[in-house]
């Protein structure tokens, strides 16, 4: 009984529907199968509430990053891909420099793609964990809002963790 509505749906939509995603940064357009794009909860919500036109504009995400996101979604929409295949494919997607990864994690967050958010966060974590905190500050463009005295005090609370670090 539970599968009946789904059968009906499949029967009424035999042809593959596509969506066009457009990067608003460099106006690059990507035509993707709807079921691939719907892994993004943000896009799914737009489609479900009929807010999506023929072309879905994606603000703040460049074409380069959008291509990575679509590659991820395509891999994960493939029902015949094994867990091992997906792991390898994910590792390939996140084998990027730290700045690309930060753009990618922002895109995954905006488009609400949980799996991509997780693998990208993990890769960023692995890339920064052994860096001095000064480098981390620079990479993330974080302004140091401590006075030198305050920073020294926070550091002194866990001095042991700084052995071998500047």
């Amino acid at each position, binding site marked *: 009984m539970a599968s009946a509505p789904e059968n009906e749906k499949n029967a009424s939509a035999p042809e593959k529907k596509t969506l066009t995603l457009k990067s608003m940064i460099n106006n690059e357009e990507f035509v993707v199968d709807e079921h691939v794009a719907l892994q993004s909860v943000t896009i799914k919500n737009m489609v479900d509430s009929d807010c999506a036109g023929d072309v879905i504009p994606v603000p*703040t995400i460049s074409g380069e990053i959008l291509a990575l996101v679509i590659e991820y979604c395509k891999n994960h929409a493939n029902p015949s891909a094994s867990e091992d295949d997906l792991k390898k494919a994910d590792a390939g997607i996140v084998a990027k420099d730290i700045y690309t990864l*930060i753009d990618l*994690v*922002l895109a995954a*967050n905006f488009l609400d793609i949980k799996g991509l*958010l*997780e693998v990208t*966060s*993990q890769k*960023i*974590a*692995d890339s*920064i*964990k*052994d860096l*001095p*905190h000064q480098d*981390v*500050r620079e990479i*993330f*463009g*974080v*302004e*140091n*809002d*401590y006075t030198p005295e305050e*920073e020294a005090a*926070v*550091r002194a*609370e*866990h*001095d*042991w*963790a*700084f*052995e071998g*670090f500047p």
Partner: protein
Amino acid sequence: MVDLPTDIISQILSRIPMKSLFRFRCVAKLWCCIIDHPFFAYMHLSQCNEEHNMLLLIPYPTYRQKKLSFRLVEERGRNMKANKNSITEFDLNHCVLLSSCNGLVCIQYENKQSYVLLNPLRTDFLELPKATIKADYPEPVIVTCGFGFDASTSAYKVVRVVCRIENLTSRVIVHRVGTSSWREDLTPTIEVHRVDTSSWRENLTSRVEVHRVGTSSWREIGEVPPHPVEGKPVFAHGFLHWLVNPFRRESEGMIVSFHIGTEKFQWTPHPKVDATYTVLFQLVDMKGNLGMVDLSSKTNIDIWVQKDYKNKEWVRQYRIDIRAPCGRSNIEHIQVIGLWENGEILLKFNDGFFIYSPKTGLRYNNGLGLESDSPTGLHSHRGSLISIPKVTAAC
């Protein structure tokens, strides 16, 4: 560059090992705030599966040793070295580290009625109310204490079992596990006692009391273990586990467990091993799972892990060949300290440390680079950011 939203920063930081997080508190005030937040402590605990167990060096209780200090031991260039700076120091005398859970450690000090809870990485410290069941009888008394967490009620509890051996008139000989001889002794210890009469077996009486962390008292419960328990229990999946001592009483099992939530004792099935002489076994924490070490063979050490906790199914995860060249002569001097990085196992043979890698076998580790001559214990510790004042405030 765009500022990262706070929840993405938390996502990333929850995957960063503890030691780096203590450095990253210096990045900016917001980062420090995220890392110190009680919610983040639990997020990190559940997320950071790759967090390596840390090795903490703790001095053995001696009369000379006044301070309890924790030091981190790390692997540098394939060798383990103790850090120069201690993480924290506490002013406690004659401490015995009992058990740990969620990065918090329960310690017994001075007499067998005083306990503290601490998170060595956060320098957090909580003195628990004095336990009520007396332990200073003229007869030998076995006191064991365990500490655990009940996820369904978010309660941390300390369980204390006092076992009294009454009407003891005969002499007691003591076997200190790890040595090869028995010696005569009339003082109560938490070592293995054997009494040369047969009637003593009926004269063991256990009493159990529980303290919920954050409350002001202990309460005695009617439940008693199905077999006298002693030594340090291991916490895993909501239960504290003790290996029973076969000298005490004939037993139907090897592992007695106490459920922190329901406050009931039960037997936990043990792996299918040939021997039942539990002196040749050890319980260990295997990254949150219960592990049992089998030292009964002369050629190898087996480590069993209870992976599927619901079905109580044991899997033999390691078989460590201990024949030459690393070989050893006396099996009782082996201690499995715990999991080391990359699924390796850290072992102590007599006074030397060995690391076992499933890929490359056993390798010897030179000294820990310690200057002091005071005896120290090495504990495998899964650290956490959990702050004890926050734990008690939740009650």
